[in-house]
């Protein structure tokens, strides 16, 4: 949906936003692209000028909203008009696609900068979409990606639960009162098991964001936040996708129907299985966004992987979006996903993900050890890196900077990844150099890396990290086994 428009608009908006300041992590970039699709309720609030939500949330293209004023009042359910400015950030980006929305929305986002990333993002989410029809309780793609990223930061396995205590600590950061949080939990934990699955978590997060944006909490869980609905609407999030993004393109279509059938619990699993389709799609988008905008927010990194998943699965559009954006960006996106903390290592292997984030991260860790590089990447790859990646991503994106560094050498796919990562890293000052390299090399190299991982060895040597990236690329072919195999050769090469 957004893909085509998104790309264009994004850039435009991003530029605007960028100027103001994109506080909101990844949101601005990703959100915009995704938002469009969903243009959920939140958007509406933000930019009155834009005609938001009028279109049904599910279809991105529709997203072109109807005159905002209309929906705006409606969506808000007449009561709470959220302050569009802060949250608009997301919306505006998305809006751009639609008529006239781009500009105004972008500005508000920037305001967000001051807010805490995680929660500031929430706000945006809210604003972005308020689907006219659906009230603010519809989760847009961008929001979902964000939520998924956050989920991953708490629990690497997307098909598993977040325990009550972990979730409590996390949601307490939102600064909402305990009774409200208690009520939100009550609404979102559908099975009352004291733990949150991914859909439940997304619903809870969404409710928190809505509440922070001023929406009163509903009496009952809205239908769009039901776990079953969320499962179906967002087939496998990015977890898996990160790695596959490039290859999975075709999959998304298949995946979707599957998701619909599943219940939330199963769907979570599906999401994990889905890696391929979603990733590619979203990855591209993200990449494009990232590269262009250079999100400063560290969250972006984490988000990218997540977003690609969700978006990918849902639609092929993301691909197109990246399409609209520069080719380089697309490439970068692909690369990006892998570099950012890839969701689950095991899953990714199955798909031919070019980048095995696991590998990427792994090497970084062992690299520090120095000398361990060759062996570590080969073995564990998946579980460790993801874990590590999460930590790194969340805590300090240390991994990211590394990745970009590694990639530049390759020029091939990896570079792209790096560049993307670099863009993200841009947030974090560290990556400055990487992006430039990656960007340039990525487009050309993309193809090369896949075919010949061994060529890189040279680079790897000086950078342990490179191994990781290299490994990732070769893995694309087969996915799990391949990746491992590729990993091995790298060490040897070096």
């Amino acid at each position: 949906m957004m893909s085509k428009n998104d790309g264009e608009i994004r850039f435009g908006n991003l530029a605007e936003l960028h100027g103001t300041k994109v506080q909101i992590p990844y949101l601005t970039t990703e959100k915009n692209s995704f938002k469009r699709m969903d243009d959920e309720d939140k958007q509406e609030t933000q930019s009155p000028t834009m005609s938001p939500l009028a279109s049904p949330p599910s279809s991105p293209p529709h997203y072109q909203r109807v005159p905002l004023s209309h929906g705006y009042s409606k969506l808000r359910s007449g009561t709470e008009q959220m302050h569009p400015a802060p949250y608009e950030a997301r919306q505006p980006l998305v809006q751009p696609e639609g008529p006239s929305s781009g500009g105004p929305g972008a500005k508000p986002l920037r305001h967000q900068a001051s807010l805490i990333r995680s929660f500031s993002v929430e706000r945006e989410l809210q604003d972005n979409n308020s689907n006219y029809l659906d009230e603010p309780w519809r989760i847009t793609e961008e929001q979902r990606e964000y939520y998924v990223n956050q989920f991953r930061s708490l629990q690497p396995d997307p098909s598993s639960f977040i325990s009550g205590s972990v979730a409590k600590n996390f949601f307490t950061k939102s600064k909402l009162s305990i009774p409200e949080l208690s009520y939100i939990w009550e609404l979102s934990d559908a099975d009352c098991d004291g733990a949150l699955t991914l859909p439940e978590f997304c619903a809870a997060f969404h409710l928190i964001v809505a509440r922070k944006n001023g929406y009163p909490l509903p009496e009952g869980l809205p239908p769009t936040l039901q776990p079953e609905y969320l499962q179906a609407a967002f087939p496998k999030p990015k977890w898996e996708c990160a790695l596959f993004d490039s290859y999975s393109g075709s999959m998304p279509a298949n995946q979707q129907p599957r998701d619909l059938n599943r219940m939330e619990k199963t769907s979570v699993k599906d999401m994990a299985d889905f890696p391929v389709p979603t990733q590619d799609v979203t990855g591209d988008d993200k990449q494009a966004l990232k590269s262009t905008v250079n999100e400063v927010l560290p969250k972006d990194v984490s988000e990218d992987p997540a977003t690609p998943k969700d978006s990918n699965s849902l639609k092929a559009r993301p691909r197109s979006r990246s399409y609209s954006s520069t080719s380089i960006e697309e490439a970068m996106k692909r690369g990006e996903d892998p570099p950012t903390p890839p969701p689950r290592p095991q899953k990714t292997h199955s798909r031919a993900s070019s980048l095995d984030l696991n590998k990427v991260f792994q090497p970084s860790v062992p690299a520090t050890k120095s000398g361990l590089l060759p062996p570590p990447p080969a073995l564990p790859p998946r579980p460790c890196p993801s874990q590590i990646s999460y930590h790194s991503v969340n805590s300090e994106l240390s991994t990211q900077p590394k990745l970009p560094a590694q990639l530049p050498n390759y020029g091939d796919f990896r570079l792209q990844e790096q560049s993307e990562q670099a863009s993200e890293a841009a947030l974090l000052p560290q990556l400055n150099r990487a992006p430039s390299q990656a960007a340039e090399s990525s487009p050309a190299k993309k193809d090369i890396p896949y075919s010949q991982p061994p060529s890189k060895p040279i680079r790897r040597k000086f950078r342990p990290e490179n191994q990781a990236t290299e490994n990732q690329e070769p893995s694309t072919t087969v996915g799990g086994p391949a990746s491992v195999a590729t990993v091995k050769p790298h060490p040897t090469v070096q």
Partner: protein
Amino acid sequence: MAVCIAVIAKENYPLYIRSTPTENELKFHYMVHTSLDVVDEKISAMGKALVDQRELYLGLLYPTEDYKVYGYVTNSKVKFVMVVDSSNTALRDNEIRSMFRKLHNSYTDVMCNPFYNPGDRIQSRAFDNMVMSMMIQVC
């Protein structure tokens, strides 16, 4: 069916009390309070056996001319007390048991909420709705 439902903590302070507003609520509170002695009596009587053998449902605690009071104790010594209108003779023991079971399930759901600290007053809307559904029928 019930005119008053109360949840009493282990330390014998109320976690939740709700009565039908038609009557003087204070009277119900007093009845619940006095019924706690009966509950303790029953618990100690059964206490000789192992705790796990003790049945949770205590049955009729004591009848008054207008009302009957039933009790239920969980394994964590949280007590549920239900005051039922005596005129409602259609209420059978099984029904009372099922009502307590529902109460217990709802209470467990409240407990599962990580934001709920055991010992706090119960403010869960779901629990409230469930209790209201049990009480409204009576009225």
